[in-house]
C-alpha cells in the first residue's frame, strides 16, 4: 500500500514537472466528453420536447378532435356540446397565421385560457402525479400575477409570448395583427411558449377572422372508453383521433438526430485519440523513471495500480470538466438546433434539464475507452525487462510490425464494409458500416505515411544523382520517417477530422447545387401568391382580366396520412404538373393514366421511406374505395412530408377542398408592376407574394440553416483534432531538442534547423491531407449515396469542393506549424548546453 502511495506521489511530482503532459491528456478527455454530452443533451432535449409537448399553458392532449376531412375548421359548438356532456378536461384551440402592420406573418394560437390553466391543477389533483414539472406549471395557473387574466378575459387585446420572444419587441414597440393593436405580456420562458404567440380564444377568433371556429379540441383525459359516445356527439362534424405523443415527430426527426449522434461519436473518438496520445507520451517520458522505481524495489502491482489510479483521476477530472462544458455547448447549440428542427419539421424545442445519467454514461464510456486504449500500453511497459534501460524511442523497433497489423485490420474492416454496404437498405446499417470505414481509414494511416516518406526518400536519392544538394535535406526526410510513429496518433485524429469535414463539405455543396438545379425546373411561373382563402376568387378574377397575365397556375393541397406517415395530398393544374414535376422515374403511360385518375405520383422521400415502387398499388386514406397505381416518382427536396400528386380533374370530382392554396402567375410583363398592382388591390403583405428569384433565395437560405448545426459540429471536431495535433507536435518538438542540439553542434545553423523542423512537420501534415483527399471523397460518396438517400430520400449529384478542402488543409498546417514554432522559439532562448544535457539525463 505504501508503495502504491509512493508511486502515486512520484507521478504527481512528475506531472508537476511536466504539466503539459497532464494537460494534453485532460484536454483530450474534456473535448471528447464535451462534444458527446453537448450533442446528447441537445438531442435528448429535442426528443423530450416532442413527447412532452403540451397545449400552450396547459397539459398534454391525449386525444384530439380535428376537423373532418377536407375542412379547415371545427364549429365551436362541438366544444360546447362536449362540455355539456361532461368532457370538461378539454381545450378548444384556434390557430392560424396573422399579418402584422409591417407585412410579417405570425403564427398565432388562441385557446380558452381558463380551461387551459385550470386543466393543470385539476389533472395533477386527480392523478396525484405531482412531479416537479407539474408543480412548476401549476403556479402559472389561474391566479398567478403574470397573466392579466381579468383584462384578457374581458376582451382586451393582449397577447402572451415567452420572455425571450418578447424581448425582440422592446419596451414600447407597437405590434398589431390584422389591424388590431396588441399589448404584449411576456411570460417566463419556463411556461414553454416557445416561439408561439398565445392569446385568448376571443381575441384569436377575431384576429384570424374565424368567429365561432376552432382548429381542434384537445382532450386531456383518456377517452378511449367513451369513444363511441364522443363520435355520436360529433355526428360527423369532426374526427376523434388519439394523440401520438410526438411519435410521428420523433420518427420524422430520427435521421436528423442520428446524424448528430454519429457526429458526436466521431468527435468523441477524435478526443480519445488525443488523450491516448497524451498517455502514451507521458509514459514514454517516464519509462526510465518507472524502471528506476522498480529497481528501487517497488513492486509491479503497486506501480500498475498507481498508473491506473492516475488514469482514473485524469478521466474523472476530464469528464467532469467536459460534462460541464458540454452542457454549456448544448445551451449554445440549442437555438441552432431548434431553428433547424422548426424549419424542417415544424417541431418546437423547449429548454430542458440535464440528467446525471448522462454524466455517468459519458464517464463510463470514457473510462472504458481509456482503459481499453491505454491498458496495452501499461502492460507493455511493465513487461519491459528491468535491465533494458530504455532509450527514448524503444518502440520504434516494433513500429513496422505494429503498422503492418494496423494495416491488416484496416484492410479487413474496409473489405467487410465494401461487401456489406451495397446490400444495406437502411440508413442505420449504412451508418454502422460507414463507422467501419471511419475506423479503417486512420488505422491505415501510419503505414501509408511511412510508405509515402520512403517513396519520397527514393525520389530524393534519384534526384541527388542528377542535381547535387546537401546531405542535410536527405537527413531531413530520413528523420521524418522516424517521426511518423510518435506523431501517428495525432495524425490519425487529424485524418479522421479532415475526412469527416471534407465529406460533409462535399455533401453540403452537392446538395446546394442539386437544389439549385431542381428549383430551376420546379419554378416555372414568375410570381407566387397565397392570398387568404376568402380572397382567392376575387384575386383570380382580377388576374384573369389583366393583359399582362399569361397564365394562372393553381395548387390545391390537403393534409393526410399514408401508412401512419403524415403526407400532403397535392394537385396542380395540368400544365403545372407537366412542367414542374421533376420525375426520377415513371411508367410509360403516366400522363394519360394520371389524368384519367388511375395513376398518381409520389415524392422520392416517400417512396424510399415506405419502399414503394413504380407500378405498386396504393389506396389513400383521403380517397377511400379507390385504388391507384404509382405511375411516377418525383424529386422533392427539403420537404419533411411525403407528397402525393393526383390529377386536378380527379381532385374536383372527389370534391376535395376546392379553393387553391396558392396561385402561380406567368407574366410576360413586368413582375414588379404586377406585384404592385396585386398588393394595391388586395393589400397582400410582402410575405404572401413571392417572385421566383425570391423563392430561390429563400430556399437556399433555409437550406443553409438546415445544415448549420452539422457544420458547426464538424468544425468543432476539426478544432479538437487541431488542438490534438498541436499538443502532439509540441511535445514531440520538445523531445527532439537534444538531437537538434547535436545537429547544432555539428555546424547546422539555427535557420537551417528551423527550416528543417518546419519542413518535416509540413511533410507529414501534407501527406496526411493528401490521404484525406480520397478518404474524404469515399466518405462523402457514402454520405450522399447511402446515408442521405436512405435517411432523407434525396438523390444528390456529388460535387467536389476544392476551396473547402484547401481551407481545412490550411487549418491543419497552421495548427501543426504553430505547435512547432512555440518550442523552437523557447529553445532559441535557452543555452545550448541545457538541451544537450537533457539527452544525457
Amino acid at each position, binding site marked *: 500500500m505504501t508503495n502504491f502511495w509512493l508511486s502515486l506521489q512520484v507521478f504527481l511530482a512528475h506531472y508537476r514537472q511536466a504539466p503539459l503532459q497532464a494537460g494534453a491528456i485532460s484536454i483530450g478527455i474534456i473535448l471528447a466528453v464535451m462534444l458527446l454530452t453537448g450533442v446528447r443533451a441537445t438531442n435528448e432535449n429535442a426528443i423530450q420536447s416532442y413527447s412532452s409537448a403540451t397545449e400552450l399553458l396547459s397539459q398534454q392532449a391525449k386525444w384530439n378532435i380535428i376537423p373532418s376531412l377536407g375542412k379547415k375548421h371545427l364549429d365551436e359548438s362541438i366544444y360546447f356540446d362536449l362540455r355539456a356532456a361532461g368532457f370538461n378536461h378539454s381545450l378548444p384551440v384556434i390557430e392560424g397565421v396573422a399579418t402584422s402592420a409591417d407585412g410579417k406573418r405570425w403564427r398565432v394560437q388562441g385557446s380558452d385560457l381558463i380551461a387551459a390553466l385550470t386543466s393543470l391543477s*385539476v389533472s395533477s*389533483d386527480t392523478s396525484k402525479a405531482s412531479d416537479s414539472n407539474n408543480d412548476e406549471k401549476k403556479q402559472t395557473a*389561474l391566479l398567478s400575477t403574470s397573466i392579466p387574466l381579468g383584462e384578457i*378575459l374581458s376582451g382586451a387585446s393582449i397577447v402572451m409570448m415567452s420572455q*425571450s420572444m418578447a424581448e425582440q419587441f422592446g419596451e414600447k414597440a407597437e405590434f398589431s395583427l390584422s389591424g388590431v393593436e396588441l399589448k404584449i405580456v411576456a411570460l417566463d420562458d419556463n411556461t414553454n411558449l416557445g416561439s408561439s404567440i398565445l392569446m385568448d380564444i376571443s381575441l384569436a377568433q377575431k384576429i384570424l377572422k374565424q368567429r365561432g371556429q376552432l382548429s381542434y379540441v384537445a382532450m386531456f383525459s383518456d377517452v378511449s372508453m367513451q369513444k363511441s359516445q364522443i363520435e355520436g356527439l360529433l355526428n360527423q362534424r369532426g374526427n376523434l383521433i388519439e394523440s401520438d405523443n410526438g411519435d410521428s415527430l420523433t420518427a420524422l426527426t430520427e435521421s436528423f438526430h442520428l446524424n448528430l449522434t454519429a457526429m458526436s461519436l466521431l468527435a468523441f473518438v477524435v478526443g480519445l485519440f488525443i488523450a491516448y496520445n497524451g498517455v502514451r507520451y507521458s509514459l514514454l517520458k517516464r519509462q526510465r523513471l518507472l524502471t528506476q522505481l522498480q529497481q528501487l524495489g517497488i513492486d509491479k502491482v503497486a506501480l500498475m495500480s498507481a498508473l491506473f489510479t492516475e488514469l482514473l483521476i485524469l478521466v474523472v477530472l476530464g469528464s467532469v470538466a467536459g460534462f460541464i462544458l458540454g452542457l454549456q455547448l448544448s445551451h449554445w447549440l440549442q437555438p441552432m438546433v431548434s431553428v433547424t428542427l*422548426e424549419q424542417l419539421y415544424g417541431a418546437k424545442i423547449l*429548454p430542458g434539464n440535464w440528467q446525471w445519467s448522462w454524466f455517468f454514461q459519458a464517464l463510463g464510456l470514457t473510462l472504458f475507452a481509456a482503459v481499453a486504449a491505454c491498458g496495452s500500453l501499461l502492460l507493455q511497459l511493465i513487461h519491459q525487462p528491468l535491465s533494458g534501460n530504455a532509450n527514448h524511442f524503444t518502440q520504434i523497433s516494433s513500429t513496422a510490425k505494429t503498422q503492418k497489423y494496423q494495416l491488416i485490420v484496416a484492410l479487413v474492416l474496409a473489405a467487410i464494409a465494401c461487401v456489406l454496404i451495397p446490400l444495406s437498405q437502411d440508413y442505420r446499417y449504412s451508418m454502422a458500416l460507414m463507422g467501419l470505414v471511419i475506423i479503417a481509414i486512420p488505422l491505415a494511416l501510419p503505414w501509408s505515411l511511412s510508405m509515402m516518406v520512403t517513396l519520397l526518400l527514393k525520389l530524393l536519392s534519384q534526384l541527388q544523382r542528377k542535381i547535387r544538394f546537401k546531405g542535410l535535406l536527405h537527413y531531413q526526410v530520413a528523420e521524418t520517417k522516424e517521426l511518423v510513429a510518435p506523431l501517428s496518433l495525432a495524425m490519425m485524429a487529424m485524418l479522421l477530422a479532415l475526412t469527416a469535414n471534407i465529406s460533409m463539405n462535399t455533401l453540403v455543396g452537392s446538395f446546394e447545387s442539386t437544389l439549385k438545379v431542381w428549383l430551376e425546373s420546379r419554378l416555372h411561373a414568375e410570381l407566387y401568391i397565397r392570398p387568404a382563402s376568402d380572397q382567392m376568387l376575387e384575386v383570380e378574377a382580377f388576374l384573369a382580366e389583366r393583359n399582362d397575365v399569361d397564365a394562372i397556375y393553381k395548387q390545391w393541397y390537403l393534409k393526410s396520412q399514408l401508412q401512419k406517415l403524415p403526407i400532403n395530398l397535392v394537385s396542380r393544374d395540368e400544365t403545372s404538373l407537366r412542367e414542374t414535376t421533376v420525375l426520377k422515374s415513371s411508367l410509360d403511360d403516366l400522363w394519360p393514366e394520371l389524368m384519367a385518375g388511375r395513376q398518381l405520383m409520389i415524392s422520392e422521400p416517400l417512396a424510399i421511406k415506405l419502399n414503394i415502387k413504380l407500378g405498386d398499388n396504393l389506396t389513400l386514406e383521403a380517397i377511400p374505395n379507390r385504388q391507384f397505381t404509382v405511375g411516377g416518382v418525383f424529386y422533392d427536396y427539403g420537404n419533411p412530408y411525403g407528397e402525393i400528386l393526383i390529377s386536378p380533374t380527379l381532385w374536383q370530382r372527389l370534391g376535395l377542398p376546392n379553393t387553391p392554396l396558392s396561385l*402561380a402567375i406567368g407574366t410576360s410583363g413586368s413582375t414588379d408592376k404586377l406585384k404592385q398592382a396585386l398588393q394595391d388591390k388586395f393589400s397582400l403583405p410582402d410575405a404572401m407574394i413571392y417572385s421566383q428569384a425570391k*423563392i430561390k433565395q429563400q*430556399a437556399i437560405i433555409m437550406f443553409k440553416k438546415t445544415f448549420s448545426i452539422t457544420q458547426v459540429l464538424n468544425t468543432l471536431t476539426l478544432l479538437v483534432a487541431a488542438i490534438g495535433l498541436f499538443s502532439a507536435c509540441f511535445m514531440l518538438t520538445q523531445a527532439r531538442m537534444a538531437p537538434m542540439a547535436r545537429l547544432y553542434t555539428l555546424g547546422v545553423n539555427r535557420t537551417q534547423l528551423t527550416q528543417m523542423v518546419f519542413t518535416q512537420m509540413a511533410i507529414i501534415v501534407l501527406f496526411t491531407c493528401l490521404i484525406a483527399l480520397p478518404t474524404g471523397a469515399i466518405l462523402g460518396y457514402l454520405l450522399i449515396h447511402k446515408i442521405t438517400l436512405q435517411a432523407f430520400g434525396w438523390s444528390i449529384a456529388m460535387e467536389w469542393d476544392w476551396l473547402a478542402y484547401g481551407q481545412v488543409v490550411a487549418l491543419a498546417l497552421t495548427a501543426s506549424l504553430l505547435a512547432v514554432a512555440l518550442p523552437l522559439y523557447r529553445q532559441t532562448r535557452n543555452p545550448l548546453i541545457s538541451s544537450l544535457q537533457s539527452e544525457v539525463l
Partner: protein
Amino acid sequence: MIQLTKTIGLGLNLGLLLMLSACSEPQTSHQSISMGKLMGPTQNNDQTEGDATYTQVDKNRAIVFPQDHLSHPDFRQEWWYLTANLETAQGEKLGLQWTQFRIALTPENSTKIPIETLAAIKVTESDWVSKQIYMTHAAVTTKDEHFAEERWSRQHPQLADVSAEPLTIKIDDWQWTGTGNMLFPATLAVAGDQFSYQLTLDSSAPYQRQGEQGYSVKSADGSVASHYYSQPFIQISGQVTLQGESQSVTGKAWLDREWSSQFLNKTQAGWDWFALRLDDGSTLMLFQLRGQTDTDTHFYSGRRMFANGSGRNIASKEIAIKASSWHKIDSTRYPTSWQLNIPSENIDLEIDALNPNAKMPLSIPYWEGPVLISGSHKGEGYMELTGY
C-alpha cells in the same frame, strides 16, 4: 421547405425564430392559492387599485327575491352553497356538497382603461368575452370515503352561467335547475369522474337573512361584510352514485347564498363555518374568523333559525368555541372536533367530523364535511375549515 406553398409561408418563421435566444432560469416560487387569497382583499396586482370599482356591500341594501337568487356580477365574489346530510336506504350517513363560486376578474362596471390604452380595443361581440369565472366544487363524504371534484370555466352562456326562467346555475353538465324565477323546487345534477348525484330539492320555509337583514359583518371593526341569506330547511332526495354503485338517499339540506367584494380583511387568515341542524327542529349558523396571528382577535357570529322564518342573531361575545382535536392530512392539521358553548341559547355541544379526512384537495384546498352533534342537543350538520 422547398415545397412551394411552404416556401411562401416560410417568411413568417424565419425572422421570428432567429431571435429566439436561450432560456432563463426557471422561477421557483411555490405558492398555492388559498381560499383567503381568493376571498381576501388583493388577489391580483393590477386589480388592487381597481377595487373601488367593484360594488361595495351596503348595510341598507335590502335582499329582494327572486332577483337576488341570480348573480351579482358587480360584486367580486359570490356563491351558491349547498350542503346536505343524507341517509342511504341502508341507513348509512352520507354528506354531500355542491358549491358554485363566481369570481369577477375585473369590475363589471369598470371605466378604467385596462392596463394601457393600447389594449383598449376590445373584442366585445364574442360570447367568449366575460369578466366572470365560475368554479364549482362537488363532494360526497361517507364515514370512510371522501370524494371531491371541481370544475372551472369562464362565464359563457354555453359553458357556465347563472340564468333565469328557469333559474339555472350551471357549469358544464353540473346544473341546478329551479322553477321559474325561484330556487325551489329544484333539481341538482352533478357528474364527476368518481361520483355523481341527481337530487330533487324542495323547501317551504321562508329564507333566513343572516346578520342585519342579510348584511353579515365579518370582522370586529365592521370593515368587511357580505350580503348573506340561507335556506336551512330543505328536503332532499335522489340518487348518489359512488364508484359506479348507485343508491337512493334522503335527508336535509342547507343552501347559503352570499356575495361581497371583500370577505376577509388583511388581518384575517381564514374561517371555520358551521351549519348545524339541532334535534329540536332549529338550525344554527355559526362562523369564526381567525386572525393571522394569535394576537389578532377572532371574530364570531351566529344565528339560531326556525322553520317558521324566525331567528335570533348571536353576538360575537356570546360565542365560545374551541377546537378539541386535530387531524393531520398531508402535512396540514385541521381541527375536526370542536366544543361549542353559547350560554344565551343554552347550547353546549360537542361537534365531531363524520369523516375527519374530508379535505377538499382542489385547486383551493380546504376542509369540508358532515359533522355529528352531541351534548345539549343532538343532530348533524356541515363544517367548513379554511385557511389552514
